[in-house]
């Protein structure tokens, strides 16, 4: 990065460079290796941690990490039970737990200094690397679309195919505005996965971008008097945004989980319960 001049072109180049994935393939067949690699590594971390806790389960008086895991587990379970009540579904709780923990960890990559991982990988010859999987639309939309598929599946399973079609025909305005209903419900249903995926992507992408902009303050600066102003400012802004971002990544992971539960919960409500 040292070669980049602090000019307009250098700034754009710096930001574009940071927003380019390490990928193979062309067009649609592009595989973002960094996204996949980091998300799989974080997934492996979760599984590894789960296996470690699972091996030495203490039924009596748990301590340390097991306590924390149990806390998270009960938190998720409470959220699911609040939404589902007696309509028990064994898939929802593990799904929600996966979303919370995995998304949180992927978001957490955002808190690692923006240049640290790319700079380290630059040394071994990797020139482009995006370390935060959730700033890749593919990751967030993948999860959102899977939730959408599940929503459709449970809608049809619980309401029946006829009930599901009826939902399109007669909601929200009753039987006299069937064409309007169809358009409204279709938009409503399609907006769910799109907003779910884009919300997380947007928040993480924007957060990453703000980190990049803060990093730009002293990018390529030479040792001079102006550095005495810019360097402390950068540190203060960076720390402030970092602390704020801890809240954001947690909140976004939580929102993604809650919406997943709510959408699936709505899919489990039958006609007569409306």
């Amino acid at each position: 990065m040292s070669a980049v001049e602090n000019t307009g072109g250098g700034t754009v180049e710096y930001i574009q460079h940071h927003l380019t994935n390490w990928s193979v393939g062309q067009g649609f067949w592009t595989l973002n290796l960094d996204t996949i690699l980091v998300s799989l590594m974080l997934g492996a971390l979760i599984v590894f941690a789960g296996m470690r806790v699972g091996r030495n389960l203490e039924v009596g008086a748990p301590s340390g990490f097991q306590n924390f895991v149990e806390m998270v587990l009960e938190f998720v379970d409470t959220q699911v039970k609040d939404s589902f009540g007696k309509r028990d579904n064994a898939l929802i709780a593990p799904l929600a737990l996966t979303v919370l923990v995995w998304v949180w960890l992927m978001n957490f990559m955002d808190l690692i200094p923006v240049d640290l991982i790319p700079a380290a990988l630059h040394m071994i010859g990797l020139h482009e690397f995006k370390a935060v999987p959730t700033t890749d639309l593919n990751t967030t939309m993948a999860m959102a679309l899977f939730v959408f598929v599940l929503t459709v599946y449970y809608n049809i399973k619980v309401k029946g195919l006829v009930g599901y079609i009826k939902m399109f025909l007669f909601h929200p305005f009753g039987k006299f505005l069937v064409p309007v209903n169809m358009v409204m419900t279709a938009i409503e249903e399609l907006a769910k996965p799109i907003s779910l995926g884009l919300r997380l992507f947007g928040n993480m992408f924007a957060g990453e971008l703000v980190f990049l902009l803060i990093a730009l303050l002293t990018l390529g600066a030479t040792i001079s008097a102006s550095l005495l102003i810019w360097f402390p400012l950068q540190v203060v802004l960076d720390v402030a945004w970092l602390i704020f971002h801890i809240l954001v990544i947690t909140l976004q992971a939580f929102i993604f989980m809650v919406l997943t539960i709510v959408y699936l919960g709505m899919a489990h409500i039958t006609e007569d319960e409306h």
Partner: protein
Amino acid sequence: MNITVTLFAQMIAFIAMIWLVNRFLWAPLSSMMEARRQRIADGLSASERGKHELKLAEERAVQVIKEAKERATELLAQANGRSTEILDEARNNAKAESERVIAGAQAEIGREVERAKQELSKQVSVLAVIGAERILKREVDAKVHEASIADLVARI
């Protein structure tokens, strides 16, 4: 930033993650927590049962002690009654025996007295006759005093 085949790779990864999280994190922990809930519930009900059993045992102990006391009193009364009975019986037996012995002895005495009387009267009459003979040999004829000697013998 475009949607590419990465989306499908991530979707597969997501599904795999759900399965793995369920297999290694959710299932073991939630079943363990269920087991813990069960254990706590069992413990609570066991302590409740223990309390109940203790109460029952205390009641039973009081009952047993009461019964034992009653039985002891009963036995004591019975023993007292029996001892009195035995004493009475013994006393009666002894009385009867002593009376029998006394009666036997008295009868024996009576018989002995009678026999002695007869013996004595026999000997007295013999002695009287001998004495009278000795006297009569000197002065009186036996024929003269026969009547008074007979009278003497009869008196004895």
